[in-house]
């Protein structure tokens, strides 16, 4: 039996195609039906095109108001509290004086009350987040609903995102968050068993309570803020946040940097404002 060159190439080509096809069929059978379509979002979950916050500072009056919002967040998310060791502090939401919140806008004639006023700050969930651009592992990424999310499984702790974020919204776990403070007390006083902690060497920040949104709850800080923090869809003209932005004068932090933050601050002031 002899075949010519043309016949040989035909047979070789056909058997290659069959072989490749065969392998893919066998592999897909072996994988045993794990398909992306098997996962779906919870129907109870809140959805939006672009989540955003309005922070009405005039509604934050006492020290207690700030503490209530921060504690609600930090307790739910197992954020370690460093009482003495401020260098290693981890924070998702905290207060910041005017000159640090809106640097460059303070001036000599500003009322004393305003200069001393604290603002509640947390991750701005920017529309163009600098942290996402610099992350080498895509551990931090922008979700379709606008939340700047942090995937702790992928974070390698390079801290590029911390250098990139102009708002200092990110904290690095220099120490084991499950460890103890300098005075021997555990950093996480009461663990929330339904939420993970983090580990040493990863960066963490506010995640807009993605885990609460997915089961239809508001972010923890908004829930306990008595209306000082309003959460809603910035792309929906009928949402509460848009109504406030449409009727009151709001400012954002460092808009000149072009990251387009999604937190709008109602500065309030007296009736002359």
């Amino acid at each position, binding site marked *: 039996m002899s075949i010519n060159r043309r016949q040989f190439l035909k047979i070789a080509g056909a058997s290659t195609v069959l072989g490749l096809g065969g392998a893919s069929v066998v592999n897909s059978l072996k994988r045993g039906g794990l398909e992306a379509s*098997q996962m779906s979002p*919870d129907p109870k979950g809140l959805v939006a095109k672009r989540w955003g916050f309005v922070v009405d500072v005039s509604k934050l009056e006492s020290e207690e108001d700030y503490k209530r919002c921060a504690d609600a967040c930090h307790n739910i998310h197992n954020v370690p509290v460093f009482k003495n060791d401020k260098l290693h502090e981890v924070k998702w939401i905290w207060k910041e004086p005017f000159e640090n919140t809106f640097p460059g806008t303070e001036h000599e004639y500003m009322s004393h009350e305003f200069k001393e006023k604290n603002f509640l700050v947390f991750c701005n969930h920017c529309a163009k987040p600098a942290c996402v651009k610099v992350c080498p592992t895509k551990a931090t990424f922008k979700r379709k609903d606008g939340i700047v999310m942090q995937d702790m499984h992928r974070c390698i702790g390079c801290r590029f995102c911390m250098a990139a974020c102009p708002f200092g919204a990110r904290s690095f776990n220099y120490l084991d968050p499950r460890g103890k403070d300098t005075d021997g007390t555990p950093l996480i006083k009461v663990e929330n068993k339904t939420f993970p902690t983090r580990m040493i060497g990863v960066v963490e920040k506010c995640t807009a309570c993605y885990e609460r949104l997915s089961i239809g709850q508001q972010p923890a800080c908004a829930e306990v803020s008595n209306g000082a923090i309003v959460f809603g869809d910035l792309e929906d003209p009928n949402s509460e946040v848009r109504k406030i932005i449409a009727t009151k004068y709001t400012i954002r932090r460092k808009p000149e940097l072009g990251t387009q933050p999604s937190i709008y601050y109602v500065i309030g002031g007296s009736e002359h404002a």
Partner: protein
Amino acid sequence: MYNSGKIIAGLVVFLAFFAFPFYYNLGKANARPEPKLNTPVIQQLAEKKCVESRDFMRSEHMQLLNDWRDSVVRDGNRIYVNAEGKKHTISLQNTCMNCHSNKKEFCDSCHNYMAVKPYCWSCHIQPKEDKS
């Protein structure tokens, strides 16, 4: 052959040393791990079934957990529909460990035997168990 005595003696010593683990463990029964399923939650289940079949979970649970992780964190999808069409909430701490609250007797029994160290528990909180 020069120095045959030294070489052969050396080879014998080397082989004896090298093969030590084999004859040390010779004849010892290596008990296979028996992950325990007798937690209170599982015992109260009407139908004692995991999210997928036993064989699938045995061989593919690591892949399933990886897919679950990506699904929740990256896509925000928290409902898993299994082969029978039943829905489960995707959560290691709240779904898996709710039933398998005996991590030491369940997860660890095989993982220790196979000498694999998944890093789940450096962040995820494991259920409280009696120290044993």
